[in-house]
């Protein structure tokens, strides 16, 4: 077995295990490359039919190319697609123009997801995060319990030895399942290439720029790149030392830094 087969089979094992335990399950589809790869793995795991709903938390600030891609492939994959927006916050006037980006994220992403889980009563969510994305994500488990307040206590996690996953939860909790945890950004692109997985056009260079990571339009920047094919992207990744999320201008950490620097008069 080559290493992509190994990655694939471990992910599919996790996916089937989760499906066995949780009938009330859904897949969070952000339309980015990772969750689309996850979708593909589920598709393969169940031989061409995705047996549970996919949910897109729509902040209403995604790129037009992302909406187009979502609608097209939802049809092609015959998805049971649920789109959820925190309409209450939008009606209250929460926008990137008027609020700071941490607040917008909390309302339109975190709170939207909370509301969606409450509404549809899901017990488990498939999420396409990877250990190598972000410092804190390195402490994640394949099966990661959250309480109702969405709190994740990384010190109180069940051990996962010899592929024995603990997937029982308390009544009110839900569990996050991370089948891609052990993949790297490079693995994803190698796999996309091998499987010919459909991927959003924003990832490919146009006029010397491409997006390496997709988020809300006002806070996502392209990187300088000539990589307009999967091969060139793989080549670029093998020769870069900047971080994947470098283009995500104000992820929470940067917004935090900005607030501090503003208070100190540096902004």
């Amino acid at each position, binding site marked *: 077995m080559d290493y992509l087969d190994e990655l694939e089979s471990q992910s599919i094992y996790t996916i089937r295990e989760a499906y066995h335990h949780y009938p009330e399950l859904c897949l969070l589809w952000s339309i980015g490359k990772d969750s689309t790869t996850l979708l593909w793995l589920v598709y393969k795991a169940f031989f061409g039919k995705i047996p549970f709903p996919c949910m897109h938390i729509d902040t209403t600030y995604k790129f037009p190319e992302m909406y187009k891609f979502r609608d097209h492939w939802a049809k092609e994959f015959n998805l049971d697609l649920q789109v959820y927006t925190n309409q209450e916050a939008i009606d209250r006037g929460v926008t990137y123009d008027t609020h700071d980006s941490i607040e917008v994220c909390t309302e339109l992403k975190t709170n939207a997801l909370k509301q969606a889980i409450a509404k549809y009563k899901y017990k488990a969510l498939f999420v396409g995060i990877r250990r190598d994305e972000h410092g804190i994500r390195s402490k994640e488990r394949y099966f990661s319990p959250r309480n109702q307040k969405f709190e994740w206590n990384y010190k109180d996690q069940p051990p996962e030895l010899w592929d024995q996953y603990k997937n029982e939860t308390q009544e009110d909790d839900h569990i996050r399942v991370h089948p891609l945890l052990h993949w790297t950004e490079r693995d994803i692109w190698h796999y996309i290439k091998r499987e010919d997985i459909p991927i959003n056009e924003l990832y490919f260079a146009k006029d010397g720029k491409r997006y390496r990571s997709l988020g809300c339009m006002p806070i996502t920047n392209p990187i300088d790149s000539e990589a307009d094919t999967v091969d060139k992207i793989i080549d670029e990744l093998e020769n870069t030392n900047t971080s994947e999320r470098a283009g995500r201008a104000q992820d929470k950490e940067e917004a935090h830094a900005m607030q501090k620097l503003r*208070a100190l*008069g540096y902004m």
Partner: protein
Amino acid sequence: MSKHPKFMVYSIDGVPHGLMQRMFDEGIMPNLANLASQTGLRQMRSIQPCVSCVAWTCFMTGKNPGKHGIYGFIDRREGGYDLAFPNQSMMTSDTLFDILSKAGKRVFSMNVPVTYPPRQVNGIQIGGFLAPNLDKIAYPASEGDYLKSINYVCDNDAALARQDKSAFCKDLMNTHERRMEAMFHYLEQEDWDFFHTHVMGSDRACHFLFGEMLDGHPEFEPAFFNYFRAVDESVGKLLTILGDDVPLMIFSDHGFCRIIHEVQLSKYLIDKGWTVPAEQPQHPLSIDPAKSKAYCLIPGRIFINLEGREPGGIVPLSEYDQVRQQIKADLLDLKDPKGNPVIDDVVMREDAYWADANGENLGTISPEESAQSGGTYGKAADLIAVPHDGYDLKLGLIAPEIFINTAMTGMHSYHDAFMVSRGVELPQDNLEIMMLARCILNTMGLPVPEDMDGEGKAITPNFDLSCYA
């Protein structure tokens, strides 16, 4: 016998030499005064630009910014005219903590600026004030749980100072107490080879209370000195633990002086036609690149919008130095409303920084060669405006006026950091912060990396500043 480290650094951000002398004389810091009466109190130079992130990186790498890559709190993000926020992951050099870890030494650092995100040291690294939360602040991450359990505060709340200075003073004391509890906890944990605790509240106190202190404000002068009494109490307790023989350094990274005006330098560059803001500026770097020959980052770092180097560059290389000289002349021309000059000197990048191992290139490479240099050195500003004391250089792309005054009453000064050290051999003259790392390695009997600065030609030149006149 209680545990103690083999080398101790206790840094107190931003305390000027003169103020320290005054606090010694007035009995506000008796413990440190007593130590200094045996060892001496020295003055030390900082680095340009004179901000904590740059100065502390120079300290812990023993290198000039041309090698470590931290030039300020804000950079231009590669690929556009957007902001980036430098942190330790963008630092292109090992630090003392990394060097000592690799030599098998057990190290501890807490709250040193630009140590977020923490690196994997042989020991513990607790990041500084830009760390977003206690879950992410430490290596190993599990130390965050201990810090939470004692209600550790990463940084006091500077925003508070703009609303309620009394509440700000209370917050300063609390932050210091929490940090000291953590320090003494970790000191007891093992016989560390190298232990560094950084105090940041002193810088905050000076930023927001320096003027009040100088003017003898009825509430804030006593509050200011009470804070330093608390710092001195911690020093006293620490000295007892250390005994008489442990090599020790207590110092600041820059000095402070009273603000006369905050200077909106971007606004001045706009008035002079060098910078044209975007139609709807979103942030301090929202410029119209097609019309801007230069732009400014804080503090006083001016970049030429050079063709081929900047994403929307319009100044051809052949005009690079000419444009720089014109901007320099304009900067030196800037006067405050009373007619006093604002800018003391304007230093060109090739006269301030270097990338080669022993500093031979400092001031010897041509402007054009310097302008086109890539890598870490290539991220330097093309001109660095050094203000006269009292003129705090800000950005102010959309500011209505060049000169304003705010809740901040103190600003950094370059020439008057302080140093109290024991058991460490320091250069006799012209001490600067970049020299300390090699002295520490020497004291610990470890080899100094070949590309480390801080002696021979690889030291910061004494610019033509009025403070030396």
